[in-house]
């Protein structure tokens, strides 16, 4: 068997300390294979967001290990973690988090700017990423002037621009109407299928979850159920 892209074992995360300590994750194990799409489902407070933050290396676990591509991430320095997030991960958020005043192109090329890519190269890649999402004609517009669906497509272009291996999507369709949401879902799953980019989707939406290869139900910091779509 091929070693998994992300492997999590006995993951614990505790917020605070002493009597007010809150244990968000209580020893969780999970393997994510290369090219897999996975949905993390749970009520608010179940620990699903904490799990995603740990998987995305935005936070460090209190106990337990996260192995990315054979590397124990607890051994990585802050700088290496920054680099890993910048080059291997893409983020799609429910709230878009676009810089409203800046142009669409500037928003999309932000990860490349952080990576230290030159302006010319950034623009070329940015236009290419926008073209994939049929937004290249909006490159010069201000992000604020776009519709919700367009904004989310800009966010996906931003997540794609550094050729990531994993896209973390936190309620990616939560702010969109059903029709637009479906378009965005189609784009994400198309990327997963055709380019082999892993998808980690955190959602309440059963319909979105059902399109993923696997569904992980989280309850009280532990995996309550695992479901795989019969292939």
């Amino acid at each position, binding site marked *: 068997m091929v070693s998994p892209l992300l492997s999590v074992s006995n993951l614990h995360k505790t917020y605070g300390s002493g009597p007010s300590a809150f244990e968000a994750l209580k020893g969780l194990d999970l393997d994510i294979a290369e090219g897999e799409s996975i949905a993390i489902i749970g009520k608010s407070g179940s620990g699903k967001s904490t799990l995603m*933050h740990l998987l*995305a290396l*935005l*936070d460090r676990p209190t106990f337990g290990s996260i192995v990315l591509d054979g590397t124990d991430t607890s051994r990585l320095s*802050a*700088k290496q973690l*920054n*680099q*890993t*997030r*910048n*080059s291997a991960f893409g*983020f799609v*958020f*429910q*709230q878009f*988090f676009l*810089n409203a*005043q800046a142009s669409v192109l500037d928003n999309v090329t*932000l*990860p490349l*700017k*952080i*990576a*230290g890519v*030159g*302006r010319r190269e950034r623009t070329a890649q940015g236009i290419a990423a926008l073209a994939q999402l049929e937004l290249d004609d909006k490159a010069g517009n201000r992000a604020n002037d776009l519709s919700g669906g367009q904004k989310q497509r800009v966010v996906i272009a931003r997540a794609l621009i550094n050729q990531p291996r994993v896209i973390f999507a936190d309620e990616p369709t939560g702010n969109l109407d059903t029709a637009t949401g479906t378009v965005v879902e189609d784009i994400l799953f198309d990327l997963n299928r055709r380019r082999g980019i892993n998808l980690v989707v955190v959602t309440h939406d059963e319909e979105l979850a059902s399109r993923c290869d696997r569904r992980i139900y989280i309850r009280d910091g532990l995996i309550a159920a695992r479901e795989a779509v019969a292939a």
Partner: protein
Amino acid sequence: MKGVDVLATAFRNAFRSRLRTSLTVLAIFIGAFTLSLTNGLGTGINQYIDDTVASVGVDDVMTVTKASEEEPTEGPAEYDPNQIATDGAPGATATALTDDDIDTIADIDGVESVEPSKSVLVDYVRHDDGTRYQLSVAELVPGMRMELVAGEQVDLDATDPELVLPESYVEPLDLGSAADAVGQTVALAVTDATGEQVTTEATVVGVAEPGVITMGGAVPNDVLAEELYDLQTTGAPEAETTRYAEASVSFDTTGGAAQTEALQDRLADAGFTGSTLEDQLGTITAVIDGIVLVLNGFAVIALVAAGIGIVNTLFMAVQERTREVGLMKAMGLSSGRVFSLFSIEAVVIGLVGSALGVLGAVGAGQLVNSVSGDLLADLPGLTLIAFDPVSIATVVLGVMAIALLAGTLPALRAARQDPISSLRYE
């Protein structure tokens, strides 16, 4: 993130909230404007004094007087037959130097040459048979330079009597224009020791602008000065002719201030007081520097207040951009870069404010100078507010440093932001 991009982003961020940034920039503008103006005032006045110094004397000459042997005491001073009146305040006297004293001074180590000042009291000056006018005569030290309207400086080695006449005498003496006056002959009258008034003639070689120190005085060359002195002392007992109020001592300046001071100490040991031009002008410049310092103090207070404005502005910016910072950190931007982004934003605000302030001050200075040129017509050559590149650069860099310091606290807060809590939404 590349350095260029950090700079560009910080610059753009600084002007994202235009009104807020403009107000902060205005506060800095006021501080930098005031500081530049007060600095410029000090520079202008000191520059004027420096320029004037060249027309008063030269820096390798010191004026030597005999030190009063007695400490000034209260009550009436005892009569000293060697006391003579000096140029100072009315009634001020100094102990005169004798020929022996001159020889003593000449023997002192470090003295290159000594020349007793022969003070001449001219009764009047007159052109052709016109009106007679009073005239004071200043002494010229080699190297001294006057601001001339026409003609040239007196030639110290000339064999014919020459003098430079103040501009204010040209018209009353009926010499025509300043240029016409050059080359004409005037008569100078002195009263000799026997009470008889005698005249001698001299050629006008130059016409001088009135300066602060030589204001209204004519400057003769050596031949004329000798001649006037000889005429004045004709018939006087020898003891009278060999008494001088002061002497000019030339010394080597290559040794710097320490050597000059050592020479002054040796003169003091021998019973004389030597004072350089710097000593004499030191008091004036010290007072001006003091006033400028106080004014600068007020400007700096304004700048500190503006600095607090920067702190405030940036805290608001950090607050506003919480999510943006969180997102950039999630995408791998290091805390150090976040810190630089906000620090540089502060410096940009400081740079814009101080650059505008300095430019405004230069403009205002120009305006003040053109007005003061009319108000202070008695001080030709005075640029009331002058700017030298060093002090302008100091103001701009200083304000940028204050801004950098002010930006530290907000930048630190931004750098420490946790991406997860920044991106949380409820």
